[in-house]
């Protein structure tokens, strides 16, 4: 085989050139068989760098291109595009990763250069046997699935639906709105959360292009970009949503009560209920654990008063199959369980609140109508706000939850506003007020005479050392500004819980092949340049499921994800991976080992010819069948045995020599 391989070594500024001896690597490349040209350039991915390749393809008639630079996950598409512009098939391009896998991880220049040579020789080895492939084009289904109906899902849904395309919005709870619906005010502007959120919720509920699937879980996802098939389980509400008018009489008449989840147990709700009055859709659900009918078969008070006869105790879960072209994951976060930090006494002392409980307490629609008062009914004279509960703590979550400093300031302000006499303490490690107008808000709080104590609180207890501590909660803290341990008695403690990933985030992510990091948050394709894309094409992420973030950032990300989806939709069709498996029929013995190997059931058996066949529309190119074929009849395009063998020879060039 006579090849004309062009090799291009990237300096990546000093990222590679600082550790790898580039001229030596270029000389090495020139000495390899089939290499007709080897060049170096400061930034291969830049326009002049790409032009260099294109010029050589045209002038020297290169038929293979090898770029030795960063990870192919970063710039393979860039260089493939460059080759294609010069009429070289994109599959005739090969990349050697000498940045992420070499210069960034090794210190010794000699050893790094040797490894870079091996990686490059491997790439040249593989390039020798590359074959052109033509990608297939498939139509993109113009519908979108959004998982999660918090502010991120709502924003993305509206953005996409407004363009005239169909959106399915799936929400686990009985209403959309997410965590934002529980908030009272938003920092730093002190807008009322409900005032800015509920109009958007209504808009989603009424939008002709949005199909809302609430109280529903995504059960199964398959397919690929442009053509996903998703199974959604709509859990039964025991209510016919079509008939229900949302009048709410059933709720009034229901005689049974239990603690409201939305109000964090600080209020009661009925057995048939809407989480909160502004819920969208305005359809209640029956909680079979509370409803007495499910226990005794008697009552039916709600059925008697329901004029449209929407209540149906026999109603079962419903499975909805939907087909979409793109998916946005906006599954949000969960609040850190403060009970895990026993010394803070959450769950033990009634006057220790977590942040969402306190949000409900200060909310005008909450259990106290917005009054800040203790269980005794009195207003607290002193309140402690404890920062970083479960955040920046190696025992729990290493990350900073980003929003707690600011919502703690908001709480402090609201306490000052409603209990003028109260002394408010903030116990912090560092104040992180990074957003627009945030620092100004902090300054304002300093002027409001809120007390700031720098130090992580060690414990909260009701153990009194003297008269002044009797009947109070005493915080022990090392005040690192003063350099001594202090005991501060207060009436009420509010914990600023951190944000963590949902417990089942990894499981849900797996449905669509997106991975979660160690902390459970979804991993974006690139932390800076592709923050809403994932490693799986056609699946995007928005909001706090990617990392803790405040409302402005969440909304910005949601709109960004929507823009990505719309860009995909407006293309109409996309190219799918051409690197699929193929079967040489003349070599196939018809043993059918591969049939059971394929995770996508892409291999079928032709009974007449007694051979197996790959359906390349279903094949994803994993190559599992290839490795299993005892007759070597299956070959993985772009990862053939020959190509990999040649690559092995390349990476071991110095042993072979």
């Amino acid at each position, binding site marked *: 085989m006579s090849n004309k391989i062009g090799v291009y070594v990237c300096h990546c500024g000093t990222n590679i050139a600082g550790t790898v001896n580039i001229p030596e690597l270029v000389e090495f490349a020139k000495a390899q068989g089939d290499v007709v040209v080897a060049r170096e350039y400061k930034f291969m991915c830049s326009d002049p760098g790409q032009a260099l390749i294109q010029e050589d393809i045209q002038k020297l008639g290169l038929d293979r291109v090898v770029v030795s630079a960063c990870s192919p996950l970063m710039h393979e598409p860039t260089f493939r595009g460059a080759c294609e512009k010069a009429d070289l098939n994109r599959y005739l391009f090969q990349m050697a*990763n000498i940045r*992420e896998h070499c210069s960034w991880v090794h210190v010794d220049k000699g050893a790094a250069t*040797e490894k870079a040579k091996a*990686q490059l020789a491997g790439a040249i080895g593989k390039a020798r046997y590359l074959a052109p492939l033509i990608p297939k084009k498939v139509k993109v289904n113009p519908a979108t699935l959004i998982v999660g109906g918090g502010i991120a899902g709502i924003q993305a849904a509206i953005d996409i639906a407004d363009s005239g395309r169909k959106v399915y919005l799936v929400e686990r709870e009985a209403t959309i709105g997410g965590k934002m619906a529980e908030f009272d005010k938003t920092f730093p502007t002190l807008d009322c959360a409900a005032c800015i959120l509920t109009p958007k919720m209504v808009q989603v509920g009424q939008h002709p292009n949005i199909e809302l699937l609430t109280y529903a879980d995504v059960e199964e996802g398959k397919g690929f970009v442009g053509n996903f098939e998703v199974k959604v389980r709509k859990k039964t509400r025991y209510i016919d949503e079509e008939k229900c008018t949302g009048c709410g009489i059933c709720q009034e008449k229901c005689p049974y009560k239990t603690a409201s989840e939305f109000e964090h147990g600080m209020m009661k709700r009925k057995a048939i209920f809407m989480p909160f009055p502004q819920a969208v859709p305005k359809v209640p659900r029956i909680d079979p654990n509370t409803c007495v009918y499910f226990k005794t078969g008697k009552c039916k008070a709600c059925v008697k008063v329901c004029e449209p006869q929407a209540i149906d105790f026999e109603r079962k879960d419903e499975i909805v199959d939907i087909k979409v072209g793109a998916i946005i994951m906006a599954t949000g976060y969960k609040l850190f369980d403060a009970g895990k930090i026993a010394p803070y006494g959450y769950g033990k002392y009634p006057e220790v609140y977590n942040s969402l409980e306190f949000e409900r307490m200060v909310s005008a629609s909450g259990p106290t109508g917005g009054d800040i008062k203790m269980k005794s009914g009195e207003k607290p004279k002193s309140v402690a706000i404890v920062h970083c509960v479960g955040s920046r703590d190696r025992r729990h979550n290493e990350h900073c939850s980003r929003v707690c400093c600011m919502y703690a300031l908001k709480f402090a302000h609201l306490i000052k506003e409603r209990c003028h006499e109260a002394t408010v303490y903030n116990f912090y490690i560092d104040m992180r007020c990074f957003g627009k107008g945030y620092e100004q808000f902090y300054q304002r709080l300093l002027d409001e005479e809120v007390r700031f104590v720098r130090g992580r609180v060690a414990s909260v207890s009701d153990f009194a050392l003297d008269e002044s501590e009797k009947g109070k909660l005493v915080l022990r803290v090392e005040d690192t500004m003063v350099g001594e341990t202090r005991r501060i008695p207060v009436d009420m403690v509010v914990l600023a819980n951190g944000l963590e990933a949902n417990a089942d985030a990894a499981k849900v992510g797996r449905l669509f092949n997106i991975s979660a990091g160690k902390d459970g948050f979804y991993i974006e394709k690139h932390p800076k340049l592709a923050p809403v894309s994932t*490693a799986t094409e056609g699946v995007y992420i928005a909001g706090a499921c990617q990392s803790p973030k405040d409302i402005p950032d969440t909304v910005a990300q949601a709109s960004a994800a929507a823009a990505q989806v719309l860009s995909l939709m407006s293309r109409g069709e996309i190219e799918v991976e051409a690197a699929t498996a193929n079967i040489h029929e003349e070599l196939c013995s018809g043993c059918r080992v591969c049939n059971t190997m394929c995770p996508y059931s892409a291999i079928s058996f032709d009974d007449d010819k007694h051979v197996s066949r790959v359906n390349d529309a279903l094949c994803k190119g994993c190559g599992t069948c290839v*490795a299993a074929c005892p007759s070597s009849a299956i070959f993985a395009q772009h990862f053939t*045995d020959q190509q990999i063998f040649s690559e092995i020879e390349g990476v*071991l060039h110095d042993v072979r020599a």
Partner: protein
Amino acid sequence: MTFEPKIVGFLCNWCTYTGADLAGTARIKYAPNVRIIRIMCSGRVDPAFIVKAFAEGADGVLMGGCHPGDCHYINGNFKTFRRMPLLKRYLQQYGIDEKRFRLEWVSASEGDRFAAIVNEFTETVRALGPMQIGHEGVVAPQATEGTAKPVQDHVKHHAEPRKSVQATV
């Protein structure tokens, strides 16, 4: 000069390769002994690749896939997992210490773990010393001529005829 083992690493595109990328982005330093080959799924790794790497003179072979249950291709890594015990027995028969081959699950978020595995495996292989296979043919220590032949056949069987491969086998 100390012996620097040469190790071939077959890493799946979605987890371990990405994890190795993360180690790079995080600038975690580790031993420069593993030369990486990217494959889409650990399920693609034909045991012949590993045999081939040893036959070419690799001192060790590292294989990385997604954690069980996390495979990008649903369950390719399970297929890999099933194949490897047999391969290990096979290697033993040719006098190749099974410790020279390691299969690890490394996720895309485990850059630090990838680095730790490379360091540890490099030291394991270093302790075992250079691979005792001559380049002219697969003649493992203590292996008789007869037993060495199937390895060559296996390699030959899977490779399209090619000058250098022919020279090897």
